[in-house]
């Protein structure tokens, strides 16, 4: 079996978590990019911060996969903004990723706290 390199594992974990975070905050309603970043930062108590250089490339990648769909929305007296919403495919992916993530977290918790149980 090939060895799992820790930096690669860390990168994949962060990447998977970032996708899950964005899909989760889009589940309730469509949001624009800045709102998405602030919402994640607020709900995580400031622990998770998305900067522009990682937030938008990830949004565009999810859009290319068909998981989310962006559209410009114009409101009276406001500048137009690009709002993103979850597609049916994205909703299925979110359910799957959420379940996988829960199982992963539970497995890690069992290992890391096993000695104290």
């Amino acid at each position, binding site marked *: 079996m090939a060895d799992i390199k820790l930096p690669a594992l860390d990168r994949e974990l962060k990447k998977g978590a970032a996708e899950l975070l964005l899909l989760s905050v889009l589940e309730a309603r469509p949001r*624009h*990019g*800045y709102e998405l*970043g602030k919402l994640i930062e607020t709900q995580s108590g400031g622990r998770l911060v998305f*900067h*522009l*250089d*990682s*937030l*938008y*490339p*990830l949004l*565009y*990648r999810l859009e*290319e996969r068909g998981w989310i769909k962006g559209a410009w929305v114009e409101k009276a007296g406001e*500048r137009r*903004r*690009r709002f993103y919403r979850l597609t049916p495919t994205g909703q299925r992916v979110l359910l799957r990723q959420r379940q996988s993530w829960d199982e992963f977290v539970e497995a890690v918790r069992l290992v890391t706290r096993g000695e104290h149980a």
Partner: protein
Amino acid sequence: MPDWKSHIRSRLQSLRLSPAREAEIAEELAQHLEDRWHELMANGATPADAAETARTEFDDGRLQSLLGHLRQAHWHELPPPGPSRAFSLDSVLIDLRHAIRALRATPSFTIGALLVLALGTGATTAIFSVVDAVALRPLTFPDPDRIVAVGMRADAVSMRADAPAAGGGGPQRPGSGPRPMGAMLGAKPPDPYALTNVTTQDYLDWVDRQHVFESMAAINDMGDAVLQPAAGEPELVRGQRVAASFFDVLRARPMLGAVFTPQNEIAGSGHVAVVSHGRLATHEAGLRTTP
């Protein structure tokens, strides 16, 4: 307010985005920086400090690197329409590869298309074979385009109240009388332009008076007959009764033996037959040939 859009566009220029998409991304990212700038100022920063902070909070290189992995960052402008390019083997190979990939990507469509092509080709081949045999391929006789079939039209025959007989392309069988035409109730009326059999007298008159053909011969289906070889079992065969001049019309001669003579047409002179090569080969031992 800082010109965020120009700042972002300068960072996007190295990416191969379409002009429209580049403008959209620049607008969206500039809005994000503007929101952040307002937020920093709301928290007490001066406009200059807020602009500097917003600008330094993201890594230009990282943004370009991550955007560069997207499909939309590999945009190719279509060449302007112009004169067609010269033929090249490379373009043919590219088209071929593209076609194969497209066919492999849609196997159900590919199978359906192949089935339609196979059935269409098979049906076309079968139809052509029939047409070729019936209409296109010439007869295997000298000057086949000069051989014609002559008969009487059905409407002409029906108008001849004094016609003694209406069946038989050659000499009539003894005892055969006029054939009633369209007498059956509900039967389909005959095609008035179709050729029908002629009487023996008509045929003999045509032979005496015509100056158009080199020779004429009558032919009539004799139906099934029993062939009794000198040795072996009798066999049911199908043949044609023909006038003596039949082989003169076709300009054909048998491989073995002789053709009919006018003497053979006289009643009571005995039956003479010309058999095909295949039947002769089957009954070679039993059939007697005339020298």
